[in-house]
């Protein structure tokens, strides 16, 4: 099942916070529309009203205008104070402490991909993945956000979360997905050449499904079952791949690029940029610069046979 690129609209809130912001937005639009119509109407009347034989400086009219301007100014102040209080109210509910029992995920922004770590009391049960964050539906999720290099910004429109990831400063926010679905997120703070293609997915699924997924992520990579995948692993470990990527349970332990232990289970590659299918995977391995110019992954001169083997190996990493 390929859901690409995932839902990405603030108009379609899928969590409590996004709903609150959406509601506030609707109210603000309504107020803005009313005020706009009032001001433009007043302006049009001022310009085109009939003025037969009026004196330019009639003192009675000047006094009348002073009253009207004062009332309009008072109404402006009242409206702004109302908007401010509404905004404070929404803000309080957004930032309230998350309900207990929240799932903790640490997300790190890198140039130009996302690392997600699901921690656990015992370190051997930690799971690390990239560019695809699975969460259970209806349970609050606390994100611990940090940056690996420059400032990034974690944003999922449908879930109403955005927070800058600033080097040297860990912050945390929480959200909740109330409906199952695949929601697309994207980096919102300009972070260099591939800022445009720094997406990710949040996959919200029922608790049981999520638990099964997380259990799988905690495992080491599958051992190759046939000769082609075995050869693929050899090529992978012998080439430059292993210098930057980790595959759990193998000597490959690089941390510059995304963890590939269960890469075949992900929906996308290249940080939410392409569907995870064989053709795109091959194109990405051979020449990432074609797809994301400036990305830190170099092109690889791989023999066709080796490439087939590597692809088979990666596709076996479920």
């Amino acid at each position, binding site marked *: 099942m390929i859901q690409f690129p995932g839902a990405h609209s603030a108009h379609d809130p899928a969590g409590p916070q996004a709903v609150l912001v959406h509601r506030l937005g609707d109210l603000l639009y309504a107020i803005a529309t009313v005020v706009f119509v009032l001001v433009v109407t007043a302006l049009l009347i001022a310009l085109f009203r009939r003025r037969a034989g009026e004196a330019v400086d009639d003192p009675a009219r000047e006094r009348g205008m002073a009253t009207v301007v004062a009332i309009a100014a008072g109404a*402006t102040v009242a409206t702004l104070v109302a908007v401010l209080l509404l905004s404070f109210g929404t*803000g309080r509910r957004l930032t309230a402490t998350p309900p207990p029992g929240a799932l903790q995920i640490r997300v790190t922004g890198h140039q130009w991909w996302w690392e997600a770590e699901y921690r656990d009391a015992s370190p051997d049960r930690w799971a690390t993945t990239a560019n695809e964050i699975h969460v259970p539906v209806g349970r609050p999720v606390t994100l611990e956000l940090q940056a690996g290099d420059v*400032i990034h*910004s974690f*944003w999922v429109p449908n879930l109403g979360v955005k927070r800058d990831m600033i080097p040297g400063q860990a912050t945390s926010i929480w959200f909740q997905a109330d409906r199952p679905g695949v929601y697309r997120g994207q980096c919102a703070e300009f972070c260099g050449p591939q800022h445009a293609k720094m997406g990710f997915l949040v996959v919200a699924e029922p608790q049981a499904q999520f638990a099964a997924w997380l259990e799988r992520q905690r495992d080491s990579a599958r051992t190759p079952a046939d000769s082609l995948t075995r050869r693929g692993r050899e090529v992978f470990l012998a080439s430059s791949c292993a210098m930057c990527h980790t595959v759990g349970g193998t000597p490959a332990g690089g941390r510059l690029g995304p963890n590939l232990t269960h890469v075949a289970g992900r929906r996308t590659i290249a940080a939410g940029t392409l569907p995870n299918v064989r053709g795109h995977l091959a194109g990405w391995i051979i020449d990432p610069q074609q797809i994301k110019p400036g990305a830190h992954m170099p092109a690889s001169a791989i023999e066709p046979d080796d490439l087939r083997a590597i692809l088979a190996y990666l596709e076996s990493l479920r």
Partner: protein
Amino acid sequence: MTTDAIQLDTETLERERRELERSWSSRPGLLGWLSDTDHKSVGKRYIVTALVFFLLGGIEAALMRIQLARPENALLDPDRYNQIFTMHGTTMMFLFAVPILTAAGLYLVPLMIGTRNIAFPRLNLYGYYVYLIGGCLLYAGLLVNQAPDAGWFSYVPLAGPEYSLGKRIDIYAQTVTFTEISALITSVEIIVTVFKQRAPGMSLNRMPLFVWAQLVTGFMVMFAMPWVAVATQFLAADRLVDTRLFDPSAGGEPLLWQHLFWFFGHPEVYIIFVPALGFISSIVETFARRPIFGYPVMVLSLVITGFLSFGLWVHHMFVTGIPQLSESFFSAMSMMIAIPTGVQIFCWIATLWAGRPRFRVPLLFALGFVVVFIIGGFTGVMVASVPYDIQVHDTYFVVAHLHYVLLGGAVFPLFGAFYFWWPKVTGRMLSERLGRWHFWLFVIGVNLTFFPMHQLGLAGMPRRIYTYLPETGWGTLNLVATIGAMTIAASVAVFLVNLMWSLSEGAPAGDDPWEAPTLEWATTSPPPPYNFHLCPTVQGRSPLWQRPADQPVVSGLRTDMREILVTTMLDAEPDSRMRLPEPSVWPLIAAIATGVTFIVLIFTPWGLPLGAVLLTGAFVGWGWPRGKDQRLQRSEERRR
């Protein structure tokens, strides 16, 4: 020096006029041109230079819009795109908007307050050259593929030494420094001129609102600009001598940059907006054919805007995770600044209500300003709301907002001001017909370009992306925005044609083609180098509308040298006479020395000692006493 009526016979007047002409004209030849300290020449040069940068920034905008017209477009690679969007922002903010709006003040303020030249005319010329060098440096960088590429607010650590190699960011930092120097100089010029050189009788409460707006802007520049100069010098130091002020791994603080930058950057928006409010007041007053309603309220609004603009900067940082209490404070301030602007809009509507509007092109642009700007004002209130900002921050919604505010709040008034004051500056009228084409194309273009961007932002499109995936569904609205951008380009083309046409074909303007109330219309179009043959006095807020038959003029100023009348700060009573300096080529030399210093500093810290030597030399030369020049000596002998 008295303002008493004295009898002046035609022959004396004519002799005085010739003498004024001799004393105030610039010197002949190239050197004379380079050393011309007339505020009108310097103002015009600023405006022409800034217009060139406006066109360059516009070309950059067009390139971006073409790139984004459809998904996965390959016109620009990310490296080019990132340079171009950074150049667009840097150009429009630092090289176009601030210089052109304050330059309008350099040109108009002395005329509006009835004096012969600006205070410190040589410093003024130096400011222009420094600005010119800064702008050329930035574009020289573009030519050698070293244009800045980290956005006009160049956040660290992306703009720091580790993640931005080459000299791109250093060029950005020094360009900003150049423009800050020039802006600070302009602010000093305006403040001193407004406080000390007003025509007798023009007490502060009779000053045109345009002059008030320029005065408020002057103070805002003075308090805001030093911060960005500090920030960019910190950045340059981090990059050049490894000071690590912004490097978190060495105890530096990336957020410090954001605070310093936005403490300047938000007032900056109002530094652009407040002079434009002054344009609108002048235009509305003239074309409603009555004084602005609620003058004291208008003045207070300008002053309050100036103060409040320093309390908003954190709303650029609502998603950085700063404490909620401070967010609430800045959220409230950001909403409250809508009040003084709202009050001014109400007063303009009242003015038009009570007046008899004439629908000429300048008024059209003023009306366009009101309608387009308030849309930007509403989205401004939205982004001031912390929860709403979380959703739209750093998206195309913000791009829409800031362009509505800046195009609506500054470019509409600026175009209106062009149609309004062009006849004064050149002596010729612009075409009404082309002006209307320009106006309507611009209104349609701006809305077509930027209105869809609100929706794009809410549909998940972040700022500053060089391309997007077809599956995102952003293609259609982006195409609409690109068509809008082409419409804006067409309207600007019509504007340029109008300017060219007017220079050769435009109808002669006469002194006062619009029957406007302020003093700049009391002299010829274009004004002579000495501005006024007989310096005026003022008895009210609309001097040309209440011109009594026996209006006194200033007499007793020497005509054989550049002498001006200095008046008191509050009531503008005649205080003393002052001689302004002659034209000089030293400002140019000092500007070159400044330029060499900062440009060498891009490459090596040795620029500092080198600059110390060069600048000491230049300023000593500038201030070296030269005795009286021969022409003046002859004239004094004649008098004896």
